[in-house]
């Protein structure tokens, strides 16, 4: 069974902290994505990566960075967490071309106090 694993289900951090959200997929997918999900706003794309060490900004990249050193792992980094980054973060992956469906992780609920 295919799997996208996010390292933490719940995370509580303080304003100004550096936060790492980790995502690992076991399907050898080329593409990986980070979304945030907020009530009434749906899913918004933060960053995506179509290959190792490659990244593209999504619609709301400000305040975030990403790292993809290995094909199976895609990390989202909040350099200095702020309260408006409190959200559900979803990682997803798929094969090149997007004809393939997205596989989602279970999400990380991040609270920044």
């Amino acid at each position, binding site marked *: 069974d295919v799997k*996208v694993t996010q390292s933490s289900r719940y995370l509580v951090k303080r304003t100004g902290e550096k936060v790492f959200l980790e995502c690992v997929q076991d399907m050898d997918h*080329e*593409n990986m*994505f980070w*979304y945030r999900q907020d009530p*009434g*706003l*749906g*899913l*918004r*794309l933060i960053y*995506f990566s*179509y*290959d190792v060490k*490659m990244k*593209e900004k*999504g619609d709301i990249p400000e305040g975030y960075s990403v790292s993809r050193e290995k094909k199976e792992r895609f990390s989202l980094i909040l350099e200095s967490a702020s309260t408006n980054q409190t959200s559900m973060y*979803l990682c*997803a992956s798929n094969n*090149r*071309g*997007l*004809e393939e*469906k*997205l596989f*989602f*992780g*279970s*999400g990380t609920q991040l609270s920044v106090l």
Partner: protein
Amino acid sequence: AQSVSQHNHHVILSEAASLELGCNYSYGGTVNLFWYVQYPGQHLQLLLKYFSGDPLVKGIKGFEAEFIKSKFSFNLRKPSVQWSDTAEYFCAVSPLVRYGGATNKLIFGTGTLLAVQP
């Protein structure tokens, strides 16, 4: 900018009622279209997708959607809902434009929360 609109934010139905959730997108070119569903406490999963061919597509659990190109719409339907259909439903569009020469972005709507009363 490309966008996806889901006009129904909350829908409450009784079991056996018919369902139609609206989805409209703004993009003049070719698109791939998706409906994703998120059941309570579960991760997002694909319900159905349209790439080409017959504009009426059938998905899992008795759901179907119709692509009407002239209306830029991809509405989701089910003739008779069940309590287990209670979930949040997301429409998504992938404009066939290449970013970075490698892949396409998937743009999601804001979601529709469906509550089915037994």
